[in-house]
């Protein structure tokens, strides 16, 4: 599904991703945990083709094809999706109109208005979102939690095959996190070849969406990979042990 090969990424003259390698197969759920500022959000934006970040070397490969030079919208239409850490608000652009345009960008002929409204209302209800959200401008006046729900609403409508969840749990209270994760799990059940990359600080979300692999990321690279239990080791012991290892590697 998605693979990076020796990815080196800079912003300005600052190196952020450092020979970054990950290989996520169809239907797999991976989690990346790492301290603040380690490059997790950068990774997710680079995968989506954000032009602020320069790929100095290395490849991003999606379904067997190098996508380094694909535009962001093309990546999205091929099935990549990012639920952003801090979803922005867009004054004057209505949620439903935006989503309709996004759905139509993936179709030969435009979706019928009735069918579309039915789908979006049903999805919003499953997420416990207020129906008026649909008609509001994107995230304008919305709380952190409402914004995160809106991201997941988009997953349900746009049906991506590769999903990045960047700090999905931030801004969501425990009940909302549960609702949101249940929605994601049922999406994954219906679309079992979908792959997920969960980026998180806390293992809490991993209790709801169980990863097959957990990676620890320090200073722009993965320093340790394990199973679900690694997340709880990290929570118990902190990143510091592994920090030392990575510092040693740097000095070599």
């Amino acid at each position: 599904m998605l693979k990076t090969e020796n990815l080196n990424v800079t912003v300005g003259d600052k190196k952020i991703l450092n020979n970054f390698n990950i290989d996520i197969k169809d239907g797999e759920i991976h989690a990346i945990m790492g301290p603040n500022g380690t490059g997790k959000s950068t990774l997710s934006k680079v995968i989506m083709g954000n032009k602020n970040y320069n790929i100095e070397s290395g490849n991003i490969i999606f379904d067997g094809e190098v996508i380094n030079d694909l535009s962001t919208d093309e990546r999205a239409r091929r099935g990549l999706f990012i639920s952003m850490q801090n979803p922005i608000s867009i004054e004057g652009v209505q949620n439903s109109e935006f989503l309709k345009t996004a759905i139509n960008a993936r179709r030969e002929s435009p979706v019928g208005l009735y069918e579309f409204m039915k789908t979006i209302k049903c999805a919003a209800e499953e997420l416990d979102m207020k129906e008026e959200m649909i008609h509001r401008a994107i995230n304008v006046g919305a709380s952190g939690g409402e914004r995160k729900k809106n991201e997941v609403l988009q997953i349900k409508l746009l049906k991506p095959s590769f999903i990045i969840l960047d700090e999905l749990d931030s801004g969501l209270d425990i009940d909302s996190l549960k609702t949101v994760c249940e929605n994601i799990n049922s999406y994954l059940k219906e679309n079992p070849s979908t792959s997920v990359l969960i980026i998180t600080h806390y293992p809490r979300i991993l209790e709801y969406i169980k990863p097959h692999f957990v990676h620890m990321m320090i200073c722009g690279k993965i320093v340790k990979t394990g199973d679900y239990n690694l997340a709880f080791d990290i929570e118990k012991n902190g990143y510091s042990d592994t920090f030392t290892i990575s510092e040693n590697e740097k000095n070599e």
Partner: protein
Amino acid sequence: MNKLIIDNSVNIEEIIVDSDMDITISFNDCKRNLNIQVMPGVCLKIFDISNNTNNSIVYNIAESCSVVINKLSINCSDTVDVNLNDMNSNIKFYSSIINYEDNEYKQNINHNDKDSISKIINHCINVYDNKFKFIVNGTIKKDSINSSFKQDNKIININNGKSFILPNLIVDNNDIDASHSAYIGTFDEDLIFYMMTRGLSLKECNSLLIKSFLLGSMDLDDRQRDILNSIIEKVNM
């Protein structure tokens, strides 16, 4: 409410509005002068669509009036003067402009008496690498105590246009609330990135953002909004 339509075929230079009125102005390819006198106590709504014009429109507003102007200009070099001549009048004036050639929009807002309020929003999309200028003046005379002047000027360049905003605020009274702002640039790249991550092409992103930028602040009914939306959709950007 009385309705009046003024287009190229109506050959008048002065209108006296002495009762509440909706006026639709629709001018194409012309150079004309129009003087609109708003008599005391009148509510006036203007819906103005101008295409390729070089017009001069003057609003003289008397006491206790309420005026709303929604003006969409496509490739125009118009001049609009608003004179708030007597106390207690207010105007909301939304100018949205789509520009493709070298043009300028001159606007003079004059507060000539106390307790007058103006809220002005000037938004332009400059499409090609042409020049566009806002020359926007606000004058608040000595007698205009307790008045308020708020003006927001923005130009978005889609393709490296050369745009200028020349704002001028002359305030001859300390007891007023006056502010103006100016922005020239492109749409926020974070907005574009967000929209593109959902599969919208740059063109589709621009189209949604342009509609929101031009129509978002306007005071329109549904029919008017539909008309303007379809005009904007037809413009090739």
